[in-house]
């Protein structure tokens, strides 16, 4: 059986899950006699990586280089790898189940009219076929899946399904074969921009020393800038109780309470927050809690260090004015 592993690299650095997939290939190849494993290294000027890969116990390393493969694009990878598969005719193509693979591999398989078994956690050789195991129902059960029809067959393995450190090294370096692919700029319909890591949270309320939190008492989204201005003058961040975020008036990452964040700032100014227990559990650890609410029976006053029974629309402008004068 001819097994090809499509490795993954970016900017000349391996995605370590590549070696896990190599291990999978080496293990699968151990059973059917005459099996051989080849690693595919794809990119621009990646011969160095191909040489590194050749140190593993492999029949061959297939080097796929093209200027248009410098940056990953789904079109570029799918078109190039289709040519590789057509030219080299493997039986089994193994991929690591990365975000990138999730992006292009279905397209690659479909362009060859083949199916793909994605996100597998293991395999089991049977007499005349290989059964791949993938999880269902959030890992509560496993399904055995196998291919019908003729090769090539595409399979991707979940990260962690195999141990990358178990990759077998070769006695001598595997030969490197360059594969020429034909790729035109106009075939690539997307243009990759700069890579960036999405900030996990735009604001980190847990680190803010002062929080100005608004509740239903703010009444309408038009009134939020009032509180925002006050927060800015106080050197704090704006937070809210659930109804405000539920209405979409503020993003969810500003929600305090059992279904939001738990905070303990030096000062917590609660504006028009009734103090339902769901909110209080997220802020009761604050050092000083100041609550302003029209309703003197509001439960927020039970946890507040200072309570002001007042209309927030009178108090916010007054506080703002004082702070602006300073």
């Amino acid at each position, binding site marked *: 059986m001819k097994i090809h592993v499509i490795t993954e690299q970016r900017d000349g650095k391996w995605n370590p899950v590549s070696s896990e997939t190599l291990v999978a290939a080496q293990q699968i190849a151990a059973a059917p006699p005459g099996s051989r494993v080849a690693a595919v290294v794809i990119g621009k000027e990646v011969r160095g990586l191909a040489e590194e890969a050749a140190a593993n116990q492999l029949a061959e390393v297939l080097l796929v280089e093209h200027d248009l493969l410098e940056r990953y694009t789904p079109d570029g990878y799918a078109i190039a790898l289709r040519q590789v598969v057509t030219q080299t005719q493997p039986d089994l193509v193994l991929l690591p189940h990365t975000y990138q693979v999730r992006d292009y591999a279905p397209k690659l398989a479909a362009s060859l009219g083949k199916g793909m078994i994605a996100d597998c956690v293991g395999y089991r050789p049977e007499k005349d076929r290989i059964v791949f195991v993938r999880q*269902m*129902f*959030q890992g*509560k*059960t496993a*399904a055995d899946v196998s291919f019908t029809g003729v090769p090539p067959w595409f399979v991707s393995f979940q990260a962690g399904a195999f141990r990358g450190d178990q990759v077998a090294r070769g006695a001598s370096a595997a030969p490197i074969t360059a594969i020429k692919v034909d790729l035109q700029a106009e075939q690539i319909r997307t243009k990759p921009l700069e890579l960036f890591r999405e900030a996990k949270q735009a604001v980190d309320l847990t680190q803010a020393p002062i929080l100005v939190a608004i509740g239903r008492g703010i009444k*309408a989204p038009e009134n939020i800038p009032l509180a925002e201005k006050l927060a800015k003058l106080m050197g704090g961040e704006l937070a809210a109780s659930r*109804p405000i975020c*539920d209405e979409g008036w503020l993003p*969810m990452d500003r929600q305090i309470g*059992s*279904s939001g964040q738990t905070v303990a700032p030096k000062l917590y100014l609660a504006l028009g927050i009734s103090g*339902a*227990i*769901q909110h209080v*559990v997220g802020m009761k650890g604050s050092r000083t809690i100041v609550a302003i609410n029209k309703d003197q*029976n509001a*439960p927020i006053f*039970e946890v507040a260090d200072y309570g002001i029974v007042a209309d927030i629309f009178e108090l916010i402008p007054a506080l703002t004015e004082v702070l602006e004068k300073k």
Partner: protein
Amino acid sequence: MERERLDADVLIVGAGPAGLACALHLARLIRQHNESGCKPELSTEGIYVLEKGRDLGAHQLSGAVLDPRALAELVPEFAKTAPLDTPVNDDAAYFLTASRAWKLPITPPPLRNHGNYIISVSKLAKWLGGLVEQAGVNVFTQFAGAELIHEGEAVAGVITEDKGRDRDGKPKDNFTPGYELRAKITVLAEGPRGSLTKHLVEDKNLGGLNPQVYSMGVKELWEVLPGRIKPGWVAHTLGWPLDSSMYGGGWIYGMQDNRVSLGLVTGLEYHNPRFDPHEAFQRFKTHPFVRRILEGGKLVRYGAKTVPVGGWYSIPRTYLDGCLIIGDSASLLNSQRLKGIHMAIKSGMLAAETIVEALRAGDRSAAKLSVFRRKVDESWIGRELLSVRNFHQSFQHGLWRGLAHTAVQFVTGGRGLVDPMRMKAGYEQYHKLDGAGPAPPRFQGDGVLTFDRLTDVYHSGTRHEEDQPCHLHVLDTNICVNRCVFEYGSPCQYFCPAAVYEMVEEKGGRRLKINFSNCVHCKTCDIADPYQIIDWVPPEGGGGPNYEGM
């Protein structure tokens, strides 16, 4: 959309006492069948149980006093391992007025509970589920049946709910489409007002002679000061805070470790659309008789759930091609004894027997599965339900006439003066308001003995992924703002025990705001909305209350 498909022999929707008993008995019967060498060989691996709760038992709520009759049939050695908490050793019935409690000289026979156990049905389900898994059956928690698969006239399985949609229904990064679970036989064991059962009964016109009618139970679990209540003491109350036109009553059960289970059951067929069952329960706790027990103690957990009380004449057709309906979903509950767990278990077992016969014969037709209904009728379930077949209906004209009817029924084996006694659906019983007068102020609670609904919801452990579509479908909110407000004063704000529904006044007018993440999955809104425009569908699996230990 392309979905992953899984083929099962038997798919059970709902891991309550009925569904789990069905699965456990089925696994045992399959083993016996295979050991006998009969063909075709059957497998327990082809049985799947779906449960929308986070864990086994998470959505199970009841009083609960268990009649162990069926459990003894299902697990003969149950007394050794089942979580039975406390045997009942004393029972009493009281009639409450606003300030007094009158003990009835004798406890009416249906409320006698010697030989029964005070249990947590959540713990029972967890324990039963463990046995089911040991027997080799797959139980998938955090998966709900979202929609039935039909093949011609037959039910052929369910599609589970999609996971990872945002509030507008758009797929998020973690989007996983629901699975297509095909089954030879689908068993609906969804409890009261199952979301699949409801539509199936409507679409196929399976309803019984009477429509199903429901009560709603609001429950709290308390830890009280030592000596306030005897473990094993079971009390039921009639009267205050409900008036004599209403059906329902309270319960107080003494459990181990100074824990008290108490609650109030209200028939969802009252006339005043602004009646608030949660508030009534809070008031119930302020009665001197109840306050005496609770004072100095603390609230541990909260929950609410509906109860099907229609009984015999509300049983829907329970068998279709490829499908059975069991337990509460099938109206198998004795409303006079306030008990359904024993019938749920028994019906699960009878369904299992029917299913094995069907699998053996390779025949899943309604005709073959109709054996289930015959088994129910011929078992003690049939006898027990027949003897109280007119009980609930007798109370539609108030408590006093109900009690008089009940006495006659008692001596005539259930027949009574009118048989069958008919009944309207609960939502048809509201009296319209004269215009939308000012709403009475909402109950606040003192935070010690009584609580507002949000505080109680907190104690139900309810959690939902917030960024998902609202699972309470209101088919036409124009009715809410243009008609309901004036005709009934928006009863959804009052009957919901979890503060899900809010009519908010805005500049532009009124708007119905649905705080779906508070939902405790009791189904009251689906049942009690006067226009029947609320459709409760399962949210993303795992969401909902956490009734562990309740």
